[in-house]
């Protein structure tokens, strides 16, 4: 109820309608600002500064990230998260403290140290416990559908929406007619006792 509690007259909301529950004073429309005192490129200065600061931070974060050559422990942890603890129901080797999990952690670390890749270690674990040991389903084959179906569904939904809005592009937002204004005036009079 209060969610949509703005007083808005039919059809008027096209411009700067107000946000819920806010008593924000009416802002001038974009035309007013665009042709106002702050003309030209200076108008965009804050936005540019914002983007520069954001991109700068992200660049620093990426450039100094130490994931280039992670330690064996770090690599082991990544593998452990994708392998189910053989004696548990859903916990990964990384999170379980069951003896089988502790043993597998040791095995994974030892195999990494002996130069095996993550892929080889996972293959080894699968050969011992079967496909169901991997918590991350494979991305190929029939099992890969679990990854692709949501992506396809999302793309289809987005495409449908894009088509919808593209079709509606140019459809004029209906303007209130004089009849509408008269209706509003009458209704307000009925409700409030006086026409605004």
């Amino acid at each position, binding site marked *: 109820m*209060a969610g949509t*509690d703005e007083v808005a007259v039919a059809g008027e909301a096209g411009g700067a309608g107000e946000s*819920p529950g806010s008593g924000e004073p009416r802002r001038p429309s974009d035309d007013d600002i665009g042709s106002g005192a702050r003309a030209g490129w200076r108008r965009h200065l804050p936005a540019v500064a914002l983007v520069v600061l954001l991109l700068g931070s992200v660049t620093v974060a990426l450039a100094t*990230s130490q994931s280039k050559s992670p330690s064996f422990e770090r690599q082991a942890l990544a593998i452990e998260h994708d392998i189910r603890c053989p004696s548990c129901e859903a916990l990964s080797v990384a999170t379980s403290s069951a003896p089988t999990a502790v043993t597998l952690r040791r095995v994974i670390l030892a195999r990494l140290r002996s130069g095996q890749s993550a892929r080889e270690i996972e293959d080894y674990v699968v050969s011992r416990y079967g496909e169901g040991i991997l918590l991350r389903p494979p991305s190929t084959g029939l099992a890969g559908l679990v990854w692709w179906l949501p992506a396809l569904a999302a793309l289809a939904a987005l495409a449908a929406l894009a088509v919808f809005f593209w079709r509606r592009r140019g459809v004029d937002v209906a303007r209130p007619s004089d009849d509408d204004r008269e209706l509003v005036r009458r209704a307000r009079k009925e409700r409030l006792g006086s026409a605004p």
Partner: protein
Amino acid sequence: MNALVGHSGVILALAGALLGAAVIGYGLLTGKPQVVRSGQVYAVLVLAGAVIATIAMERALLTHDYSIVYVAENSSRRTPFLYTITGLWSALAGSLLLWGLVLAGYCAAMVWHFRKRAQDSMVGWATLVVYLVAAFFFALLVSPANPFRTFSGAPPAHGLGPNVLLQDNPLVAIHPPMLYLGFIGFTVPFAFAIASLATGRMGEGWQIETRRWTLFAWACLTIGILLGAWWSYQVLGWGGFWGWDPVENAALLPWLTATAYLHSVMVQERRGLLRVWNLSLVIATFALTILGTFLTRSGVIVSVHAFSDSNIGPLFLGLLAAVLVSGLGLIAWRGDKLRSPSGIDSPLSREGAFLANNLVFSAFAFVVLLGTLFPLLYQALAGGQVTVGAPYFDTMTMPLGLVLLVLIGVGPALPWRKASRATMGHRLAVPAWAAVIVVAACVAGGIRDLADLAAFGLGTFAAVSNLRQLLLAARASHARGQGAWRGLVGRANGGMVVHLGVVVIAVALASATSFGTRGQVRLSPGQSAVFDGHTLTYVGPATLRTPARTATLARVRVDGGGIFTPAVSYYGTSTEAVGTPAIDSSVIDDVYLTIDALPAHPRGPVTLGVVVQPLVMWLWVGGAVLAAGALLAAIPGRRRRLPTDPASGVRHGSRPSSDPAGGVQESPAPELMGAGAVVREGPRGGGEEP
């Protein structure tokens, strides 16, 4: 005796539901309002039967009436009082009895709430639907899942007691009932959705009538899910709070669709759009609660939370099929009446944001549903084993979560119909700057992972944007001389508070999962070790012996302060050892201790499992904020809506404030009127606040 009374209660409730359904059905089909009215009374029978059955079961549990199989299996003389009471919902048949009780309660509350309009066919249809659902559950309780089944031979002298994990933490007393209040509460909006389809009164009336019912169910479900996470964290001993376990997913699924509905319903109330969509969401939410019940009670999935194997699975599948077929069939039948009078003008608008919100929530629900069911489907189709675990769900839902944070920030700042760039720039400048400054600070503080930076940045953006809305609302109320606190009340403002709770939870989730460390330390008595900045001193072992529990404790001093005692416990007569974690919780981080290996002798070393996770406490704080927000949203806010607002045209000749019944009574089909304004059932007609 208890068994006889209880079973009679169940039969009484079933008879009440069936008779009520028959009477109302007859009244509706023959068009006799008086008969429809008389059919509502049977809700009293349903409630009485459910209450009698529940009391009989509790009495049997408390008096250790082991002639009843359920009591013998789920209570023992050693079980403490609290866990004897909660024994009602610690196994399959009893939990269905609780389900029946809650449903009977909702049914009676609904009939009472709408008692002045009992002749209305809309209310009649809704009551009929609730009766039918109740009849299904009480029929289950009569035979296939009869909790009052007695031993045919001599009853055992001792009971087994509830599952040991259910005797460990008092949250067991609140979490399941909250969850059930949530699940079952969605029966009410579902019933009204079906009623609106059946009566052909497709306006917004039914949604406005059931708004608080939906909100209440949603809030209970949210709190129930969070309490469940809290329970897992305190009991299960792996330091996590969410495992993407099928049963957890089963609770999350209806929550996702219900959350989507709570948002998109505003688009329909305001603009008359998304009707089919909203009906589908309500039906989907109810269907998903049934699916969840099926998953947890049929034994098709393996889960720590699942109930034991049983043969009632196919019955739930039957109910699920009935819900989906009738729901979708009715929507198809009413298709022409459901066409919206106007469209969405621009994607950059409040309704556009709600649409995006719904898209994301639907995708979220699809991912969770697919991931939960995929192992079953794969086994059926390809015959192979595949596990869909946390890595899948984390990878798939993380981007969706980030998009939701963006929407939480942008949505409330967007006006209806169409936003201009200048408006948005003005409203989002402060949140955007706050977000970028936080990202820069995080990078300076050493955080490198892009997902974490995005979570913290977007969390800040969303929080500041919503705080700004609240501040503006408070300022506006203050300016009206109503007191600034009024700016917190009402659907929109309460919604902003809920958003803040969600942001707090999102930030806590990101930091706890990304920056947690776990490991083991092996300590002899008196020895200390430093783990992730915390000093742990093993003081020595201790034993605890109560009638209900025998435990070996490890006394561990954390950071030179208090003593924490992780334990290995045995409950009742069970021989199953249960690890009981101990948690040193603070606003900065939690130190989570478990015993991974007991000392071989009292002076020997103990192996402790240690998990240190930052900001975990804020998950629960965020939950409390969220619950408070839901409460604020339920309180009527300042009503400024006039019948002339865009979606609510004026009905000629209607008397705006003389119809306490609200919108459901009259049913003018919405029609196009001038500037996209819709004549709709006039729910705002009555009871306007000054």
